[in-house]
């Protein structure tokens, strides 16, 4: 694998050689891990059919961006490898450093809960004790680290292909077998008994008061538009694709695939409610369902599929977040100090060392961090540390030539306030105001951009006037 990787562009974006089917497959693999199944199943278990609402904003965001090329086309035409690169081209290197730091913190905190959640999952399904499961996770992560270190994006895409075959088979089997074994009428009865109309009608008691109502939809739509343009693991697929047309086509068709990515695991959570009752810990609903529902002979195959899903996510996330640290933090700092670009070989070496460091950190974080509220919301909010500011800066930076550096700084800073508050507040407030804090982040980022631009122009104007 290493023989195909000559420089940093081969390593991070596979020399922009990825075709449509391979790109779609690789994107699916990256964004489907054991943790994805767990958080969606938790939502289905805790909320019933209304949790399906989580799938629609994602699908719509993919379709609109794929069809229109909004933001993504200009980004692909710029031939960048990471999103913060855009910031140094449009604004300056200091902003690249700032957004890179927020991206690295948000992304790694997000990634950091994966091993813990998945270790618990494996522990329940296999019965292996927690302590040994963690050792298993470390071994699995080391294998992933080794092949990602060697071949970068090339080995990620190749292993994604093999992993997708297993994970898709597992997803189809659990859904079909679950419906046959539990029965559709029992599933519907379980939702009605446990949640009544609230579990079936997403706009109950009203569209504005419902947990999955209008506010949730707006937040999720904005969040997913941002994820599609600035979530490093996703945008790297875009930058690795052959050309802009292929990149847009991957996004358009992803709308269909990402609909299924959410609907099927949410449905497994609802099946767990019908099959196991409502008294179990929501995050344990899926592993318990699998162990009780799936026949012993097939369990091994399903586990292989689940592990494959995890490995593919780990490899992509390791590559993505370490590329932000190596390219945007370390690389930019060195350039700011020495005034020189690092050679491609040195960048490659730093990228590989960073990857190992990120892996060690996420193992440590997953051991000590306790999640409160929906796991899905925790993951969203860690990402939101940089997402609102980045989306606003990208949109203004690409489509409005008068965008100023002060506006970018303020947008990034104000957009990060609600997610920081969410991560620090108590569980009750988190659950009650998650949507408000979600869309509030985007609103604050927009206000920050407008105020910053206004201040920049005003003070810039006075400076010029004083000079005259």
């Amino acid at each position, binding site marked *: 694998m290493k023989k195909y990787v000559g420089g940093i562009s081969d390593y991070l974006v596979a020399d922009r*050689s990825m075709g449509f089917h391979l790109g779609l497959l690789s994107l699916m693999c990256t964004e489907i891990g054991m943790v994805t199944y767990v958080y969606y199943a938790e939502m289905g278990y805790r909320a019933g059919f209304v949790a399906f609402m989580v799938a629609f904003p994602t699908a719509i965001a993919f379709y609109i961006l794929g069809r229109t090329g909004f933001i993504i086309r200009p980004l692909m035409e710029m031939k960048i490898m990471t999103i913060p690169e855009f910031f140094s081209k449009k604004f300056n290197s200091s902003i690249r450093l700032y957004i890179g730091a927020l991206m690295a913190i948000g992304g790694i905190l997000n990634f950091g809960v994966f091993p813990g959640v998945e270790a618990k999952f494996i522990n329940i399904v296999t019965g292996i004790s927690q302590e040994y499961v963690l050792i298993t996770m470390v071994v699995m992560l080391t294998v992933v680290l080794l092949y990602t270190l060697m071949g970068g994006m090339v080995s990620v895409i190749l292993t994604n292909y093999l992993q997708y075959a297993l994970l898709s088979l597992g997803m189809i089997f659990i859904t079909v077998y679950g419906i046959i074994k539990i029965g559709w009428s029992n599933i*519907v009865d379980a939702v009605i008994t446990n949640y009544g109309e609230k579990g079936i009608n997403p706009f109950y008691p009203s569209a504005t008061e419902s947990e999955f109502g209008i506010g949730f939809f707006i937040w999720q739509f904005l969040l997913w538009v941002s994820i599609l343009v600035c979530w490093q693991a996703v945008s790297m697929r875009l930058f690795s694709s052959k050309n802009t047309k292929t990149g847009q086509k991957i996004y358009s068709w992803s709308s269909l695939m990402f609909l299924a990515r959410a609907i099927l695991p949410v449905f497994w959570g609802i099946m767990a409610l019908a099959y196991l009752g409502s008294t179990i810990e929501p995050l344990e609903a899926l592993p318990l369902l699998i162990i009780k529902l799936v026949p012993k002979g097939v369990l091994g195959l399903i586990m292989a599929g689940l592990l494959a899903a995890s490995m593919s996510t780990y490899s992509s996330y390791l590559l993505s977040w370490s590329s932000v640290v190596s390219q945007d933090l370390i690389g930019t700092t060195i350039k700011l100090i020495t005034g020189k670009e690092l050679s491609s070989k040195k960048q490659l070496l730093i990228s590989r060392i960073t990857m190992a460091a990120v892996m060690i950190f996420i193992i440590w974080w997953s051991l000590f961090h306790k999640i409160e509220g929906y796991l899905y919301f925790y993951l969203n909010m860690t990402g939101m540390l940089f997402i609102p500011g980045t989306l606003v800066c990208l949109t203004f930076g690409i489509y409005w030539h008068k965008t100023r550096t002060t506006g970018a700084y303020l947008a990034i800073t104000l957009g990060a306030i609600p997610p920081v508050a969410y991560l620090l507040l108590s569980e009750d407030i988190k659950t009650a105001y998650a949507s408000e804090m979600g869309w509030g982040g985007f609103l604050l980022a927009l206000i920050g951009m407008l105020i910053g631009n206004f201040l920049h122009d005003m003070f810039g104007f006075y400076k010029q006037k004083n000079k005259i």
Partner: protein
Amino acid sequence: MNGYIIFWAIIILFSLISFSIMSIKMLIKGIPELRDMFKQLNDTKLKSTNENP
């Protein structure tokens, strides 16, 4: 409420069928694309080796 139940049933069925069909299609058509990707990477590497021996 019945209207919503039917709607959710259609969504589940639609997701399951589209996911299955697309997965098979991606796995079949992904093989020649993998081959093309390695070919391009190989060609690029050869080109850069020839330019900087």
